[in-house]
C-alpha cells in the first residue's frame, strides 16, 4: 500500500476535534436507538431485580453508558438485546455487591463450585441420591402451592450466586436464545448447558429451603443400586 492509499489520519487539531465530535455523535445516536428499542425491557429487568425505581433508573442509564463505551464488544451476529441485557445483568450484580458491602450483610450464598450448588450433597460420588427428594411442587393445579413457589422463586433469584442467576434471567426469564447467550457470555454450548443445569439446581435447592421442605433420609443406600453394564459386557 502506498502512502497515498493509506487512510487519511487527522493531521490537525481541527480535524481531530471534528473526528472526535463525529464519534461522540455516533455513540449518542446509537445509545438513543438502543434506549428506544430496548429501554422498556431493560427497565422491567432492572426494576424486577432491584425493586427500586431509583436504582432501576440508575442501572438502565449505566447500562447504556457502558454500552456506548464498549460498542466494540458487540460481536458480529450477536443481538443488541442480549448484549444490553448482559451488560445490565453485570450492573445489577455490581449494585448488589455494593449494597451488601454497604449494609455489611452476610448473605448466605452457595459456592460456585465445579459440580455446583444444588447438586453437591444430594448425590453420592457415583451419582445416586444421598437422600430422598421431598415431595413438594407436585401439585400443578394447586393455586396455593403455585403462589408459594412463585414467592420463593422471586426471593431465590436474588439469593443464588449472581453468575448463576444471570443464566436463569437470560435463558429462562427473558428467553434469549441459547446461541445468543453463548455469544454474550463467551461460553461454548456445552458450558452454557452445564451452567444452566447448575443454576436451575441451585434455584431448586433455594426454593426447597425457602418453603421449608425437609429433606428425607434415603432408604436405598448407594451400594445397593445399579451397576454400569458397560463394565460387565
Amino acid at each position, binding site marked *: 500500500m502506498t502512502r497515498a492509499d493509506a487512510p487519511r489520519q487527522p493531521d490537525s487539531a481541527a480535524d481531530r476535534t471534528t473526528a472526535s465530535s463525529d464519534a*461522540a455523535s455516533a455513540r449518542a445516536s446509537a445509545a438513543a436507538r438502543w434506549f428506544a428499542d430496548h429501554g422498556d425491557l431493560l427497565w422491567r429487568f432492572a426494576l424486577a431485580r432491584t425493586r427500586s425505581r431509583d436504582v432501576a433508573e440508575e442501572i438502565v*442509564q449505566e447500562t447504556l453508558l457502558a454500552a456506548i463505551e464498549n460498542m466494540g464488544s458487540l460481536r458480529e451476529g450477536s443481538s443488541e438485546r442480549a448484549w444490553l441485557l448482559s451488560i445490565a445483568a453485570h450492573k445489577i450484580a455490581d449494585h448488589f455487591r455494593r449494597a451488601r458491602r454497604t449494609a455489611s450483610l452476610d448473605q448466605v450464598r452457595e459456592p460456585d463450585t465445579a459440580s455446583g450448588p444444588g447438586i453437591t450433597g444430594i448425590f453420592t460420588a457415583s451419582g445416586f441420591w444421598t437422600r*430422598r427428594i421431598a415431595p*413438594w411442587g407436585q401439585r*400443578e393445579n394447586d393455586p396455593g402451592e403455585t403462589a408459594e413457589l*412463585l414467592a420463593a422463586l422471586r426471593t431465590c433469584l436474588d439469593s443464588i450466586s449472581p453468575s448463576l442467576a444471570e443464566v436463569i434471567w437470560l435463558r429462562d*426469564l427473558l428467553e434469549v436464545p441459547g446461541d445468543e447467550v453463548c455469544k454474550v457470555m463467551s461460553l461454548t454450548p456445552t458450558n452454557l448447558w452445564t451452567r444452566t443445569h447448575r443454576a436451575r439446581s441451585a434455584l431448586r435447592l433455594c426454593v426447597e429451603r425457602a418453603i421449608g421442605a425437609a429433606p428425607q433420609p434415603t432408604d436405598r443406600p448407594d451400594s445397593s443400586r445399579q451397576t454400569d453394564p458397560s463394565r460387565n459386557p
Partner: protein
Amino acid sequence: MIRALREFLAILNRPCREHTEIYSRALDGEQRRIAMIGVRIHMLYCKSCRRFNTQMRRLRALTSRLGDELRTGESVPADVRERIARNLGSGPEKI
C-alpha cells in the same frame, strides 16, 4: 439394532444424576428421544428422580411465567425516559 439396544440399556443403567441432567436438557428441547425414553422408564421406579425432575419442570414453567410478567410489564415512565435521554445526549462525562 444391537448397538441401539446396548445404548438403551446403558441409558437405563445410568446413575440418577445423569438422568436428572438429561431431563434438564430436555426442558430446553435439546435432548435425543431415545435418551428421554430411558429417563421416563427410570422415573417409573425411582421416586426421587420423579420428584426432582417434576420440581425442575415446575420451576422452569414458573420462571417462564415470571418472564411473561417482565415482557408485558410497565414501560419506562416518562420522567425517567426524559432524564436518561438527556443524560445520554450530554455524554458520559456529565453522569
